[in-house]
């Protein structure tokens, strides 16, 4: 998802007998659906795992602004431009909520940014694909934000209080993102033959990368088992992917577009669609840094970080000077 392949302790879930009394009490709180708050005791693994997951999620929101920012100056109408600006601004806010949640675990924002820029921390594979036409703005909102919602709605119930609260805010805003994307797709799909071709092309290119967002099957992953025990992951990757396909295929049909999968078929027995898995080789290559836009995305982040340095430093110095002089806001 926005946080893919997050590594947990790697040692599997401890049985109650293997746990220390503190760990047992902690697990009991989670099992009783109690929220864990920043200053509460927590196992080191829980803290590290959460920092990785929330940090990756935050980075994804920030890097995710780039493929859409690409179209702000070229939006077809002023209204579309305002909508896209509002959406991209939301993503910046989502990044902020999530960085703030991660910071409550004792990691600094600058440290996370530096880890992103050095490649030590990842962001979602989906944002390493280019946005070639205006129809891609539709596909990104409809499919990418749609897939994100699948994952984020259950995370509102995650065990870590600040993370859960950030998710509540994000989910409220995310629904606008998906709907504006579908609205673009509707316009294109009902437009001229050339527009409809663009819409189909966007679906063709974003379908499998969207399925990859959920990550490879984690039915046997020790990392996922631990994350689920800690309730920082609620559903399995396959479960969410299935749900996404079942929800999205009828929407594609409504648009009169074809999902680019010859193996797609309704399976009445399981009450869901059978579908072709994405190319996991491609997924791992993109995650490793070999996607079409990895270098470009990181370059853009590095440039923003470097070019913004004088603003950060200048305002900090100004703030300190004013504080020293005893000047408050009003």
């Amino acid at each position, binding site marked *: 998802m926005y946080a893919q392949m997050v590594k947990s302790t790697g040692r599997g879930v401890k049985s109650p007998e293997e746990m220390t009394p503190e760990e047992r009490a902690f697990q009991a709180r989670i099992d009783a659906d109690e929220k864990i708050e920043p200053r509460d005791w927590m196992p080191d693994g829980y803290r590290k795992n959460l920092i990785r997951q929330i940090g990756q999620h935050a980075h994804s929101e920030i890097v995710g602004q780039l493929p859409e920012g690409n179209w702000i100056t070229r939006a077809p109408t002023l209204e579309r431009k305002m909508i896209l600006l509002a959406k991209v*601004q*939301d993503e910046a806010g989502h990044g902020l909520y999530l960085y703030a949640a991660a910071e409550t675990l004792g990691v600094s924002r*600058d440290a996370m940014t530096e880890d992103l820029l050095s490649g030590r921390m990842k962001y979602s594979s989906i944002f390493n694909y280019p946005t070639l036409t205006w129809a891609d703005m539709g596909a990104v909102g409809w499919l990418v934000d749609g897939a994100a919602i699948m994952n984020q709605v259950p995370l509102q119930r995650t065990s870590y209080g600040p993370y859960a609260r950030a998710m509540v805010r994000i989910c409220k805003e995310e629904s606008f993102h998906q709907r504006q994307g579908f609205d673009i797709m509707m316009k294109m799909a009902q437009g001229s033959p050339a527009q409809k071709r663009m819409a189909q092309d966007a679906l063709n290119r974003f379908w499998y990368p969207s399925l990859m967002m959920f990550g490879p099957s984690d039915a046997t992953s020790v990392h996922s088992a631990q994350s689920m025990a800690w309730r920082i992951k609620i559903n399995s990757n396959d479960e969410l992917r299935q749900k996404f396909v079942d929800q999205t295929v009828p929407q594609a049909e409504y648009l009169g577009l074809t999902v680019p999968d010859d193996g797609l078929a309704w399976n009445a027995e399981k009450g869901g669609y059978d579908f072709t898995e994405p190319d996991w080789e491609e997924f791992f290559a993109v995650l490793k840094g070999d996607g079409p836009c990895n270098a470009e995305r990181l370059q853009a982040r590095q440039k923003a970080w470097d070019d913004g340095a004088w603003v950060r430093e200048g305002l900090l110095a100004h703030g300190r000077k004013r504080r020293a002089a005893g000047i408050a806001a009003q």
Partner: protein
Amino acid sequence: MSDEWPLWEVFVRGRHGLSHRHVGSLHAPDAETAIRNGRDVYTRRNEGVSIWVVEARHISATAPGDKGPLFEPSEDKVYRHPSFYDIPDDVGQM
């Protein structure tokens, strides 16, 4: 310079005459910028009519371990709630 802008906690008063409520945090170099950024981040959809910001380091809080001694004593004082008293129906609304 690797210094970060200080962390601020943001409180917003919603539309309906409510108290200010904590909505989240942000980094800002000074109070003025914290308010301006708080407006951009936390009230983009009519969520508020007033904003407070306070630097996070100025907040004092109870420790998680104090939860028992501080808050449990009120659990057995049921007589502080109106439902503790049985008033006959004949008395009417009270």
